[in-house]
């Protein structure tokens, strides 16, 4: 036990003295989360749009006020004709234009039907879709208010509800994604580098000749990174709740418990990497290429798994982050309990076990 404590102390010395790595370890998750939460997001705010009101009546004014009061659109008042709209689109000044037909209110009250045209700049299709969706829902809102007053028969309302993420916030996908990525990166890459470093420096040989048991060496390498990972989980969760405004719907205990399992999985993967590499560079390369890419591409974080070719869909099952992200989304955002995620948890545990068994086998061969 004393051996273990002495050795863990030593590991902390290594980590704390390497200020640069320390900053990366603690700072990276924060930076990542903020970038993915704020900058890289599908939600659009304050998009410049033009409104061409050919009717100028009570209803069109009502709709325009509603559009204006939303945080998504800024109306460019200088645009007053079709020609100007076209120019504004070409120069990129506006992303969307709304054109009301003449006699809008009259048409609406007499024939129960009125035309409103939405033109969007679809050079960025995702943004265009998002913007038209926002705008349609604003108009629909207004329509609902009208209908409530008039009790018009035969009006069919389509109503879309965005479940769990009513405001379509980007943070809802980025937080689970960043957690899945950061924890894997720190736990797996840093442990594998720390272990391989001892091999490279020749100190591993000294440790193997000493009465220190090899598994104790490995455990004492793993514990500091486990603690750092927990610190990261805490900062990510605090940031996402208080800065990104993401709620934790489910049980916090379940969330942390499944995160601990995921960290174990990542740590054992790091140990496995350390048994197959001899240099720190190799360990880093394998961790980056072998872990980062699949996590970003195949975990369902950046691209939906259901849309992938079958082979990639099958491969994605091997990525621990995929299962973890499913768990986090379910627990954190949907507020689902253990009865829905036990399968994913079991898969993570099975992966952890497999990594450890292979590592132990490889470790023995090496001796």
């Amino acid at each position: 036990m004393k051996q273990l404590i002495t050795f863990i102390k030593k590991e902390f010395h290594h980590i704390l003295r390497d200020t640069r790595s320390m900053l990366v370890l603690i700072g990276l998750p924060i930076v990542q989360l903020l970038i993915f939460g704020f900058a890289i997001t599908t939600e659009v705010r304050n998009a410049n749009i033009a409104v061409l009101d050919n009717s100028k009546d009570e209803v069109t004014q009502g709709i325009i006020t509603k559009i204006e009061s939303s945080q998504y659109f800024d109306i460019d008042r200088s645009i007053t004709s079709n020609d100007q709209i076209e120019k504004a689109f070409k120069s990129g000044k506006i992303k969307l234009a709304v054109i009301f037909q003449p006699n809008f209110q009259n048409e609406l009250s007499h024939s129960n039907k009125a035309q409103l045209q939405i033109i969007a700049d679809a050079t960025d299709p995702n943004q265009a879709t998002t913007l038209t969706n926002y705008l349609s829902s604003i108009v629909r809102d207004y329509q609902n208010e009208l209908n409530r007053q008039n009790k018009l028969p035969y009006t069919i309302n389509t109503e879309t509800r965005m479940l769990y993420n009513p405001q379509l916030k980007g943070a809802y996908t980025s937080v689970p994604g960043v957690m899945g990525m950061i924890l894997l990166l720190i736990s797996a890459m840093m442990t594998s580098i720390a272990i391989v470093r001892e091999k490279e420096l020749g100190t591993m040989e000294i440790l193997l000749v000493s009465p220190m048991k090899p598994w104790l060496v490995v455990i004492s390498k793993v514990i500091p990174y486990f603690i750092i990972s927990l610190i990261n989980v805490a900062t990510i969760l605090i940031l996402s709740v208080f800065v990104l405004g993401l709620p934790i719907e489910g049980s916090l205990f379940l969330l942390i418990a499944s995160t601990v399992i995921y960290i174990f999985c990542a740590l054992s993967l790091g140990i496995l990497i350390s048994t197959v590499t001899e240099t720190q560079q190799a360990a880093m390369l394998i961790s980056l290429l072998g872990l980062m890419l699949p996590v970003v591409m195949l975990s369902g974080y950046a691209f939906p798994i259901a849309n992938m070719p079958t082979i990639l869909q099958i491969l994605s099952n091997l990525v621990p982050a995929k299962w973890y992200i499913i768990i986090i989304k379910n627990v954190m955002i949907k507020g689902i309990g253990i009865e829905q995620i036990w399968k994913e948890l079991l898969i993570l545990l099975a992966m952890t076990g497999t990594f450890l068994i292979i590592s132990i086998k490889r470790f023995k061969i090496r001796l």
Partner: protein
Amino acid sequence: MTSEKEIVIKTDNLTKKFGDFIAANEITFEVFKGEIFGFLGANGAGKTTAMKMLIGISKPSSGKATIAGFDVYKETEKIKKSIGYMSQKFSLYEDLTINENIQLFGGIYGLSDDEIEKRRSELINKLNLQNEADKLVGSLPLGWKQKLAFSIAIFHTPKIVFLDEPTGGVDPITRRQFWDMIYEASHNGITVFVTTHYMDEAEYCDRVSIMVDGVIKALDSPAELKKQFKANSMDEVFLMLARDAKRGE
């Protein structure tokens, strides 16, 4: 040298094969307590392989060996407690201070805190490192590092200390000082098993063995070997034996 002395290392036809390649071929020798035993050989002669079997990090393919009375197959844990080891690569932690390195290795070998503290202050005073004790090892000159590494290898007073080319890259004065430390350790009853490339160092040993292509070609005191090969120096003896070597660089 007589066999009345206590034997601390005994090997009997110890062999290590890697596939078809026989790295160490039926090595048989004995080392006595308190002796400085030089283990010579050209690069690739099998020195390191043989040493790895003796310190318990490589399993022999066949043959027998006991280290400090313990069997290399079954009692590696006991062997590890009775030996010290200093490898070719500099093997202290450069980002830890001298004191931290001492405390770490003292702790690994299971010494009590009081004992570590007592020996630590003795060691710091002996090496005159009072002012450097809290500096990072990485900032020390190589010669000091080597002396410190040796001191830490015998910090837990092992029965035997294994030194794998301990003086590589060190200037002649520091080498001389290093050998003074080896003599002192040997005087205190620690058996020293040392591999080296420097033939002048071979002259300092009580007995030397010379390994060529995985086989021990000669084993005796430097004086006897020179007489036997009618040579003036160990250098000549070594050249005569190693000339026919097929392996190596």
